[in-house]
């Protein structure tokens, strides 16, 4: 029964792959609706399935078919898989609703259909990754996921930055696969089996090697610094509903992989695994948010926040490993719970933010927040939804983001239980960075919401923006509601799930807030007069949007404070009328922030490869004579080598 449900859901997810056939219809709108409905229904079925597995704790074995004889594609859904399937299903449901409106704004019908088809394959592949029983099926679905997302990143291929985004994404995603195959190879060499079960390693060295490969493989895909560079390119390049899926879900699939390896494949590891994870997470978190602050492209800003949040999740996993290694299982569980809960929360609010910023993009035709402003009056629904997402991601109570970060903070607070003072100091450092990250995120979202939605429109497009169609509000609304519910009812939910985490009862807090708010508002409702008037600008006639604080202005103090990280470079060129440089003619000033990882990591590697390629090309760009000379030399070398072998 429950298995039938699962097959039905997978089938429904596969069905929209036929969407390109709609091109043969005159108007495919109804067909597209139907296909999106199929995705929605599949998502609901998967939610039910996941809830069932989570609740009963049964393991669901679903054989699909044989990829090749002896290589079965089999799914195994346990609680961990079910949790992630739940995340995927919920977000996919919301995105499916949103897409009904979003897809129709695309111009060519071929693209509309294609977007739906690729989207369904993308979602399906993620479900398959998460429920794959063996590494072959895992890699198959993993690559399918990479493929679908790669095509989606290139979906708007004629746009300017897309090619670069696609290239970055391709390189990094393939690099991640390299390490995953390496991890698979190590496990296969140890056990002779591809199953994702607890592996008995012949020595700790191999276990650590497998961990390292898995960490690198999943880390690259999740966007851990310094492998993060593809994220801010790829996410903005993709259509907005896909950005939501990529940022909300795909990088979580990488987290799933990491958790799967840590929990059920690898043996309990030495403490340095945890230290590695914690360090990587901390660095990602802080750099992610700092880079986000300087970003004025809304989707890229959100992408950097994904790096930050992935960092937070990985920090949680690191804490889990550290506390587990110390035998402090209650704290370890708290950290793991925080990490997983944050995974869910981030999926919800990041998708929410990407979807709403997609609506903003559609309405204003730009992603540059310096050209927005005042959208709250023009698109109130979108604004409110974005605000909910912004408050959640800033980890403010009583929303969901707060709860998961709180759990991690609490795990940190118990650092005093650890034995090693050095480990304690490490946790102290990570903790303070975490606190900074969290506060900077709030600053960044004040900027994002304030500059985009509040104040006066900064461009004609922003002035003429229209509210998004209903489905593009309904989809994000689902996520927003979940953000609130998961925040308010977190205490109760954990109780139902049987965990006793020291989480404050936010329902009480929320209700009290509401009560006090209502009471004050009621008490003061008739006090004083009210008048609406132009903003006071010291008596001068209002300059409109010109006088408004800009996004660059907003983030300037932080950039100044962290100039060791940004390394801003100011170049000023002046021209003068005379030789003494007294009469100024004209000049340009340009401030550029250093892109550290690009300049010191990615570009040098690319240059080295380019150089090697140029060398190889030069060797081959010769005439026949030299080609024959190569044969001569190679044959002679072979003879010499053979002489020494025999």
């Amino acid at each position, binding site marked *: 029964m429950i298995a039938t449900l699962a097959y039905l859901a997978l089938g429904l997810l596969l069905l929209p792959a036929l969407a390109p056939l709609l091109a043969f219809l005159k108007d495919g709108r109804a067909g597209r609706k139907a296909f999106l409905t199929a995705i929605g229904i599949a998502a609901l079925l998967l939610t039910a399935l996941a809830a069932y597995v989570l609740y009963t704790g049964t393991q669901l074995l679903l054989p699909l078919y044989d990829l090749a004889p002896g290589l079965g594609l089999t799914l195994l859904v346990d609680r961990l898989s079910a949790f992630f399937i739940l995340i995927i299903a919920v977000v996919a449901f919301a995105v499916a609703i949103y897409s009904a409106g979003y897809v129709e704004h695309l111009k060519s019908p071929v693209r509309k259909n294609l977007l739906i088809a690729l989207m369904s394959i993308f979602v399906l592949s993620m479900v398959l990754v998460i429920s794959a029983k063996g590494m072959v099926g895992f890699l198959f679905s993993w690559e399918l996921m990479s493929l679908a997302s790669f095509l989606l990143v290139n979906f708007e291929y004629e746009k300017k930055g897309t090619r670069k985004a696609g290239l970055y994404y391709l390189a990094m995603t393939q690099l991640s696969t390299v390490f995953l195959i390496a991890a698979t190879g190590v496990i296969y060499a140890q056990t002779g089996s591809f199953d994702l079960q607890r592996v008995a390693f012949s020595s700790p060295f191999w276990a650590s090697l497998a961990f390292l490969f898995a960490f690198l493989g999943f880390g690259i895909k999740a966007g851990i610094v310094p492998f993060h560079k593809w994220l801010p390119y790829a996410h903005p390049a993709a259509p907005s509903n896909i950005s939501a899926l990529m940022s909300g879900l795909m990088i979580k699939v990488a987290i799933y992989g990491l958790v799967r390896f840590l929990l059920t494949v690898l043996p309990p590891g030495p403490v340095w695994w945890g230290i590695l994870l914690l360090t990587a997470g901390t660095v990602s978190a802080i750099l992610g948010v700092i880079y986000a602050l300087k970003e004025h492209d809304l989707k890229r800003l959100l992408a950097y926040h994904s790096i930050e949040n992935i960092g937070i999740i990985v920090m949680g996993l690191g804490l889990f490993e550290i506390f587990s290694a110390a035998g402090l299982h209650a704290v370890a569980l708290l950290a793991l719970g925080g990490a997983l809960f944050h995974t869910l929360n981030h999926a919800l609010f990041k998708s929410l933010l990407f979807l709403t910023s997609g609506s903003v993009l559609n309405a204003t035709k730009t992603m540059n927040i310096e050209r927005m*402003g*005042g959208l*709250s009056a023009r698109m109130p629904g979108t*604004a409110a939804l974005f*605000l909910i997402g912004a*408050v959640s991601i*800033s980890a*403010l*109570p009583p929303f969901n983001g707060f709860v998961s970060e709180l759990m991690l*903070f*609490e795990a*940190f607070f*118990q*650092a*005093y239980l650890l034995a090693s*003072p050095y480990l304690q*100091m490490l946790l*102290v450092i990570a*903790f*303070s*960075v975490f*606190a900074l990250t*969290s*506060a900077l995120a*709030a*600053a960044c979202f*004040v*900027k994002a919401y*304030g500059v985009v939605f*509040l*104040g*006066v429109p900064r461009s004609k497009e922003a002035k003429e923006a229209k509210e998004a169609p209903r489905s593009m509000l309904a989809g994000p609304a689902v996520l927003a509601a979940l953000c609130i519910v998961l925040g308010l009812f977190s205490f109760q939910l954990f109780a139902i799930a049987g965990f006793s985490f*020291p989480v*404050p*009862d*936010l329902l*009480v*807090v929320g209700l*009290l*807030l509401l009560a*006090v*708010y209502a009471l*004050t508002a009621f008490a*003061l409702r008739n006090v*004083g007069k*009210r008048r*609406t*008037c*132009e*903003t*006071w600008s010291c008596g001068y006639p209002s300059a409109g949007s010109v*006088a*408004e*604080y800009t996004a660059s*202005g*907003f*983030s*300037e*103090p932080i950039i100044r*404070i962290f100039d060791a990280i940004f390394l801003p470079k100011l170049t000023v060129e002046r021209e003068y009328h005379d030789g003494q440089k007294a009469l100024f003619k004209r000049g340009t000033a340009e401030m550029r922030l250093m892109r550290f990882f690009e300049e010191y990591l990615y570009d040098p590697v690319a240059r080295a490869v380019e150089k090697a390629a140029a060398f190889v090309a030069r060797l081959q760009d010769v005439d026949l004579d030299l080609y024959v000379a190569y044969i001569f030399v190679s044959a002679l070398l072979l003879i010499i080598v053979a002489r020494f072998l025999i």
Partner: protein
Amino acid sequence: MNWLFALYFVLNTAVAVALAPLLMGVVKKVKAWAQGRRGQPLLQPYYNLAKLLRKETVVSSNASWVTRATPYLSISVLIVATLSVPLLFLPGKTSAFGNVILFFYLLALANFFMALTGLDGGSTFGGMGSSREMSLSAILEPLVLLTFLTLAFVFKTFDIFGIVGTTSQAGIFSVDPVLILLGAAFFVIIVAETARLPVDNPETHLELTMVHEAMVLEHSGKHLALMETAHAIKQLLLMALFINIFLPFGFATQPTAASVALSLLSFLAKSIILAAAIGLFESSVAKLRLYRVPGFYAVGTFLVVLTIILEVFR
């Protein structure tokens, strides 16, 4: 929710709301004395509030609902936050309050919306204030939380109720002398969080100096009254934390009428002294340039880190 908690709720909130403006007045009075002026009456903040409530409330035509809702939100958040800081006695264990993170993040919630209102009017000042406020509070955050991490190392708990419970039993500094260092750091936090010199200047409306004031510049009438009250409560709560953790003598260990009354008196005395100290401190320093403020925070951070190292490697 038992009766004790209900009593706690009522008493704590009432004391906080009632006392908050007074402490504002004390600081101002001390500052005036230090400058050789007579200064305003002690109760002037109350008069101000009453006057503001009667005045017209002007809202910018650019403003969205955020501007209109934030004053109410601020006051509600601060009142709920009050519940996490026991002023007079401990109500026993609750599932919702006393969490350090919850407390500070509630303050952050109020801050978040206040910063939004700064941007809402579309004026230059508001945006500037928001920008500075968010930047400074962001870099203050590690200091705040580190302080409590250190307290967790000392008291083996990160619950405010738990910490206060321990300190009120133990008396002054009997727990750990290194806490003096921490107390100094906490003083930095209070100064910074309540927008006082040398971080911010509550007195002026000069573009160069103001941070907090710039954000609330657009508010008037009852909105301003609510914002001011919220700000005063925030100051009181931070001071209360300082008092109850570092100077806990007199705190009611049992919720009996007599000890609570004694507790109230001692709290009043200690808070007025602390407010006076803040006023004196403010009078003795000059406003720092915006980009020098992180240096001031660094002093606090240094103290905390020193404490932690002493604790960790003891």
